């Protein structure tokens, strides 16, 4: 069994999102708590800007939850940079016990699933789950310098500058995390680093198939099934892969990356990065859950577990995907 049910139903008592200016102009702009005026965010380097975003996300989420940093038993955080520096440096700034997570762009679900499991086990009361990404830091680590005059291929995606933090708690009010399906690492041999959607789609399909089999539910059970950053191509592939197995995703399915930017923003296949699913979940989805417009949401972000070293040596890109079921509070 990959799916577990949480008896105590830990609640997301607060979520905070921060995004860059381009993301603010995108389709989810009005749901973000804070939109930065520029990508550098008053810092010296983009890496420091990313860190500042993370810190603001934690501070903002704690404020919304009405908690102090001393009330937090554990911080679960991850990002895309080497040795997840943004997360670790953020943990340094707050006096909290910290576990670094790496699930690439699936980190939001990974940390929420792990957090909910730990709380449900009775060991912790309040856990903060945090992740994000920054276009300029990811670009320099994975691709080319910002000012290089090259063209993007049609399958490429735009790394979003955004971060999101969620406070998971045993007490309080909010949407509850009811189930989690931990995903396996799936690799269908895609080596093209400019086509992450195709590399990750099989992992989302695997997790979803397992989730539906183990719970006996159908896609129509949920008000919303949302993947992270498969992009346009990746989400089309996911629909095909599931259809082959007899599972039909309907109008309640959407991919955060695909709908993240508006069409005019010219981002090819859409958005990617940890920040996409983190900001959509903590901004848009939590908002709709708390208003009661959604009752049951299946949140399935995917992560491409590649590194520049491995891809340079011709390795294919493995994908991982974790699913969590979030239900609106009473």
């Amino acid at each position, binding site marked *: 069994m990959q799916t577990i049910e949480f008896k105590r139903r830990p609640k997301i008592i607060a979520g905070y999102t921060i995004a860059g200016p381009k993301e603010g102009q995108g389709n989810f702009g009005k749901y973000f708590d804070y939109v930065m005026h520029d990508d550098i965010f008053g810092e*010296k*380097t983009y890496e420091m800007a990313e860190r500042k975003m993370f810190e603001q996300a934690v501070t903002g989420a704690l404020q919304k939850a009405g908690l102090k940093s001393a009330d937090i038993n554990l911080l679960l955080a991850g990002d895309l940079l080497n040795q997840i520096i943004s997360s670790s440096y953020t943990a340094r700034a707050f006096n909290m016990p910290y576990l670094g997570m790496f699930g690439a762009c699936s980190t939001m679900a990974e940390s929420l699933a792990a957090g909910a499991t730990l709380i449900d086990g009775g060991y912790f009361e309040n856990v903060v789950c945090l992740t994000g990404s920054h276009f300029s830091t990811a670009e*320099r680590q994975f691709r*080319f*310098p*910002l*000012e*290089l*005059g*090259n*063209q*993007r*291929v*049609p*399958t490429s995606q735009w790394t979003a500058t955004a971060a999101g933090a969620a406070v998971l708690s045993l007490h309080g009010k909010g949407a509850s995390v009811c189930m989690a399906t931990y995903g396996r690492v799936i690799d*269908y*041999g*895609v080596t093209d680093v400019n*086509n992450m959607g*195709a590399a990750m789609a*099989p992992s989302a399909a695997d997790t979803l198939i397992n989730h539906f089999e183990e719970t006996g539910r159908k896609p129509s059970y949920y008000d919303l099934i949302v993947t992270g950053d498969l992009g346009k*191509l990746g989400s*089309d*592939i996911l629909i*095909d892969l599931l259809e082959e197995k007899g599972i039909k995703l309907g109008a309640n399915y959407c991919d955060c990356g695909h709908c993240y930017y508006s069409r005019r923003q010219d981002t090819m296949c859409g958005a990617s990065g940890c920040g996409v699913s983190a900001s959509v979940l903590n901004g848009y989805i939590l908002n709709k859950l708390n208003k009661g417009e959604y009752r049951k949401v299946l949140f399935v972000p995917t992560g491409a577990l590649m590194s520049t070293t491995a891809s340079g040596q011709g390795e*294919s890109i493995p994908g991982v995907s974790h699913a969590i079921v979030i239900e609106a509070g009473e």
Partner: protein
Amino acid sequence: MKNQQINQKYNRYVEARIPKTKAWPSLFNSFWVGGVICLIGQGINDALLYIFPSMAEQTAWAWTLIALIFIASFLTALGVYDKIGKFAGGGSIVPITGFSNSISSPAIEFKHEGIIYGTCVKMFTVAGPVIVCGVVASVVVGLIYYIAGLI
């Protein structure tokens, strides 16, 4: 073996679904932007020869190249050249201005890691292969030329 077949099947399927770049519009933009850059180069060259009639043609060529390299680096620093490149593709990569951009952009990008370990080390990350291949090719051509001369 079975896994390999699944992977091959999946990769063929993905290949068929990938959206393709529209060839004609990109070729057209690439052609006219590349042409304009060359026209600017020729303009600079002619102007130099007109203003300084005593200048040797080869000296004028050198100054033209320096001017183009400077303009491209300047536009890179202003954040303009990447926009031209996004629009024109090969049209702005192939001329010497593209070469200039490929060296100045990492130099700007990595300046936070320091002058030596940042700018100096990373400056040739993009242009390095071009320089290496160019040098190797010129050595090979030189050898052929030398051997052909002996015969």
